[in-house]
């Protein structure tokens, strides 16, 4: 059964529509970020946002604790701290946290519109539910911020509890969507929103993130304590030790981390535990930074052997906590390879069930967008190659900047390149299969070779039938399945899988 295709007569834009899965596959323009690969842009925004958002969540819990200490007479200086800390929370979290949250949406669109589209499509009511908690968070937070001096202790605590509850619930909801990307679990067969949301990675991820939130809040608390002028040295010592109570759950991090690793698909786990040097490095940075914070907290704050001044807290916070967050987020993003949504969408925005279709019809056949500076390209074949690169590679690679394809393929000759790209998922198991025709693959190879050769004005058109036949043979040998097909539980969608099989059959 051939998937229905439509041509948008109104707009002239093209796309494919698979009615069986009710999904729209859109052709989007791809932006060039120069030497930066889009993934790096995404990572930068995401790490900043996650850091700030987790601070907001943990900050709510910390404030509730200190408000309770103040109103029960356990620590009078806590009252001063609560008021000072909340100002920081509002100025940093309400402003930067909220706007980087919107920014992450915009950045996701820039980097991979199909991925964010898939997430929004499947979980838009979960996101809408999260939005209602954003509203509660803002209202409760501002009520406290504006009127805490005029309210009773009990009312202040009520507002802070509501704020903390709303902030934590926003983590609860987004955690389900993010963990679904790596471990969609039973959702792959049922497509039930509950199965997707409460996926295998949900609980370890939620508990782990909650502890990270509390850790960040406690460390920022140490900074704030040191910059409130009204506090004496003794009061600061007391408040820092109280804040350190929120660091104690870090003891559970190794167990939760192991639980999370256990829920990861085996191939993803193998990248983190040595299969991919870059991912292993970031994993170790995250673990090392967390251990350093935990060790310092235990010695200095719990055993009270050390006094934490502003510089120490800042250093710990900004370097270690940021490093741990950045490392953790990198691992979380990277371990999904070759997917952005496991078994649903590859990193380049192509669906697994589309590959067989694109092997026949081509991945840039309907691409309406020209290549920028097209006139500087020597011939049509290289131009097509540039389009193929844009469609299939550009989300994770640049041609000559970061993670550059020209660099990665520098030691390959033309035939090696043809074979390695045709069997990409076998050459590099964290790469998706090539999703285009043999002619498109040859165009990509010629584009890369042309760049290797310093972009000369003249370039030979090399579409000999023997070359194309050889590439076709390699593509057929590699098949259209990803490398992890053996670990796959169930086909994504029966209807489209049948389509793919039929397409493969017809190709043969």
């Amino acid at each position: 059964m051939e998937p229905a295709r439509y041509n948008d007569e109104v707009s002239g834009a093209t796309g494919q529509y698979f009615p069986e899965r009710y999904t729209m596959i859109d052709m989007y323009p791809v932006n060039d970020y120069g030497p930066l690969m889009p993934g790096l842009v995404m990572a930068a925004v995401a790490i900043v946002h996650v850091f700030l958002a987790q601070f907001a969540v943990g900050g709510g819990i910390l404030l509730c604790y200190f408000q309770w200490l103040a109103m029960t007479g356990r620590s009078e200086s806590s009252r001063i701290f609560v008021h000072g800390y909340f100002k920081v929370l509002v100025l940093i979290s309400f402003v930067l946290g909220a706007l980087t949250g919107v920014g992450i949406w915009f950045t996701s669109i820039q980097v991979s519109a199909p991925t964010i589209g898939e997430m929004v499509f499947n979980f838009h009511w979960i996101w809408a539910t999260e939005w209602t908690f954003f509203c509660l968070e803002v209202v409760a937070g501002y009520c406290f911020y504006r009127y805490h001096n005029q309210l009773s202790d009990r009312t202040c605590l009520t507002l802070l509890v509501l704020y903390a509850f709303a902030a934590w619930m926003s983590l609860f909801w987004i955690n389900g969507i993010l963990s679904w990307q790596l471990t969609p679990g039973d959702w792959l067969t049922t497509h039930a929103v509950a199965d997707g949301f409460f996926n295998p990675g949900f609980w370890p991820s939620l508990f782990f993130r909650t502890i990270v939130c509390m850790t960040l809040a406690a460390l920022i608390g140490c900074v704030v304590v040191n910059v409130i002028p009204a506090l004496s040295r003794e009061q600061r010592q007391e408040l820092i030790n109280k804040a350190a109570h929120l660091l104690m759950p870090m003891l559970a991090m190794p167990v939760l981390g192991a639980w999370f690793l256990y829920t990861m698909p085996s191939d993803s786990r193998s990248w983190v535990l040595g299969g991919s040097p870059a991912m292993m490095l970031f994993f170790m940075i995250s673990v090392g930074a967390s251990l350093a914070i935990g060790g310092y907290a235990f010695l200095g704050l719990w055993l009270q052997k050390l006094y934490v001044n502003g510089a120490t807290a800042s250093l710990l916070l900004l370097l270690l906590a940021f490093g741990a967050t950045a490392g953790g987020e990198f691992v979380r993003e990277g371990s999904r390879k070759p997917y952005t949504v496991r078994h649903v969408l590859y990193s380049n925005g192509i669906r697994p069930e589309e590959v067989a279709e694109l092997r026949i019809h081509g991945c840039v056949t309907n691409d309406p967008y020209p290549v920028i500076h097209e006139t500087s390209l020597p011939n049509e074949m290289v131009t097509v190659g540039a389009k193929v690169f844009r469609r299939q590679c550009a989300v994770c690679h640049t041609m000559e900047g970061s993670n550059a394809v020209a660099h990665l393929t520098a030691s390959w000759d033309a035939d090696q390149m043809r074979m390695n790209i045709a069997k990409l998922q076998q050459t590099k198991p964290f790469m998706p299969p090539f999703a285009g025709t043999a002619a498109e693959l040859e165009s990509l190879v010629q584009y890369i070779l042309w760049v290797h050769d310093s972009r000369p004005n003249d370039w030979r058109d090399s579409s000999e039938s023997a070359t194309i036949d050889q590439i076709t043979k390699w593509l057929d040998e590699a098949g259209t399945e990803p490398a992890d097909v053996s670990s796959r539980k169930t086909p994504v969608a029966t209807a489209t899988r049948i389509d793919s099989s039929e397409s493969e059959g017809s190709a043969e």
Partner: protein
Amino acid sequence: MDRMFPFGFDSHLAFYLVVYVLTLVVHVFLMAYVLAGSLWLSWATLFPGADATPRAKQPLARILRDWMPFALSGAITAGVAPLLFVQILYRQQFYTANLLLGWRWMVVIPVLVMAFYLLYVVKSNAVGRMSLPVRLGLSVSIAACFLFVAFCWTANHLLSLDATVWPEAYGSGVAVKSGFALPLRLLTWIIGTFPVMSILASWQLRGMRSRTAASDPTVSESHWTALFNFEHRRLGTVSVAGLALASVCAAGYGATLPPSVRALLIGNTGLPWILVVIAGVLFQIAGWLFQFRRPCICNRWLSAISLAATITLIGVASLREIIRLTLVNLDQVTVATKAAAGVGGFELFVVFTILNVGLIVWCICLVQSRNRQA
């Protein structure tokens, strides 16, 4: 599309359109407060007036400075919901316009961050010690930031409507359309924010008047009455002028639309909403004119004007969607919403919306009772 919007559409599409329009209107209320408020503050700083108290220190400017950071926070938060549903309704159009504008679109975020922090600077006590050029610079910078964001949204929206120009826009890098449509549409929205801001600020002035009069016995009641009535009249004047000018700009924008779109707007789909908008505008103007003849602002009339403004905004948002649905591929949007309706979670949204609205009301009640607690 032969029945009044949204009834002439597939039921799933109509449902998402209603949710989108309603959440957009909530966002527009807060956005209008921030945009018009920042322009008002710039004007008040630039032209202090001949009164003993300069405009920038009069009650309206004080209220705006005090509440704009919260209003911006609220506008951004409220904006998340329509931003979510626009991705369900017009995924390809919205994403493509985002991508074509590229960094020119992404820069909206740092610009808003800058505006946010400048609002806090303007709100702080330190602003009283600043020289006039610095205060003017601050106010104008804030207004410029919001105008830039408004421009980006308008450019994005117009680009998303015209898929025929996408490949050329991508190739040439010229993604902002020239012509009259962009300035007229932008002016409609900018000028249209003043009536909304006037209503919200009027409600705030009422609350401020009662609290200030009670807390400052050295100032006579008659003085406060005169001052606040003057501010109310000024807001009324701004509102009436804003409604009239925005209507002219909207008519001008309508003239730039293709004949097929205009035909739909004056047909069964759009005409009822055009009439609703006209009625809403006329009622607001009449309401403000009636207020001018009274010695003080009347709660009942202000409520009626607020209701009329809400209905007007719903009408404007509906007309905006009718125009968009005429220009995009309706089949594609219908299929997308039908598919989205099959995804679960709506019940969850309803339950938590009720819960959180209740909790928000509780928060406000807790704050309202602060005088008793004090």
